[in-house]
């Protein structure tokens, strides 16, 4: 009857006085739904960002920005659309962060007395160690295997990284991945196939 009305439309239609409690209820419902969604994706999104950026704080920033952006811009959209939108925002943030690092490094390199090449964001080897508490040998082996996967992923072209991460690691179907990547389903399949071939070639020996 009302169709896929957004939260803003729903709220706008409510009379200010009469609808105050209903407004609050609608806000609470939306907040609860968004809370559940974000709680379900936040850790995986963080690991995806951390793998791409190789920096914990940057990854946290990107995830937080993606959460805020989703809430601000798409909080009123049907919740079924959130996941691909969220990951699209997340990857935009990752790319911006990578570009910002590059620009910052170049700008600092231009300043007198700067040593951007030495002091700029460098990969911290400790960042590549899993964050969990030190465990037995089995955990160590899993950590090392994960490090190999991250290194192999990092060697892929960005779009192949995205396709593999979203399709395989995050478990999206082709249509969702295409929405998240902003490309056609055919492109997703091509990127994914190439990523899988490359990873298989790199990891077959060590896994």
């Amino acid at each position, binding site marked *: 009857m009302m169709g896929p009305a957004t939260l803003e439309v729903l709220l706008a239609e409510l009379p200010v006085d009469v609808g105050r409690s209903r407004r609050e209820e609608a806000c609470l419902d939306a907040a609860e739904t968004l809370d559940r969604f974000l709680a379900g994706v936040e850790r995986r999104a963080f690991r995806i960002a951390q793998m791409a950026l190789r920096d914990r704080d940057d990854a946290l920033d990107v995830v*937080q920005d993606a959460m805020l952006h989703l809430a*601000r811009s798409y909080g009123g959209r049907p919740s079924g659309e959130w996941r691909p939108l969220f990951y699209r925002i997340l990857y935009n943030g990752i790319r911006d962060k990578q570009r910002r690092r590059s620009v910052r490094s170049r700008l600092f390199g231009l300043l007198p007395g700067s040593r951007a090449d030495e002091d700029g964001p460098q990969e911290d080897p400790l960042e590549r160690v899993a964050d969990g508490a030190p465990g037995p040998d089995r955990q160590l082996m899993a950590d090392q295997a994960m490090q190999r996967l991250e290194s192999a992923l990092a060697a892929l072209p960005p779009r192949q990284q995205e396709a593999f991460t979203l399709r395989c690691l995050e478990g999206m179907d082709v249509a969702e991945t295409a929405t998240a990547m902003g490309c056609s389903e055919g492109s997703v399949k091509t990127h994914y196939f190439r990523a899988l071939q490359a990873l298989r070639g790199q990891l077959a020996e060590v896994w």
Partner: protein
Amino acid sequence: MSNDERWTGTERHARQLFDASVEGLDGETRSRLNRARQAALEEIARGRASPWRSWLPAAAAASIALLAVALWRMPAEVADPSARDSRPAPAAEVVEMLANGEGFDVASEDPEFYVWLESRDLPSGNGAG
């Protein structure tokens, strides 16, 4: 067939490793993610961002333009004496970045950094400053 099986194994193994790494996140990271989520939810409750944020990117973009002008007027050897033969002049590089829109994209994401950067004392060139 064997290839398919192998790929399936690669995918399965990758997924398992990733899931395990997600489960192994430390408490502090989980806590920070939780706080980030609460901030997003508060954003919904507030309805819109603070008004001061709307002009900050513009101020940062202006700062970048000022920085570009300062570097333009700075002699190349002052900016980077060790690489005067191997690198383009600073102004050219900055202008190239600005022309590509990189600086402004960055400014919209990290405006405070560029406001700060512009405030740094640069050595004055030929009458600059």
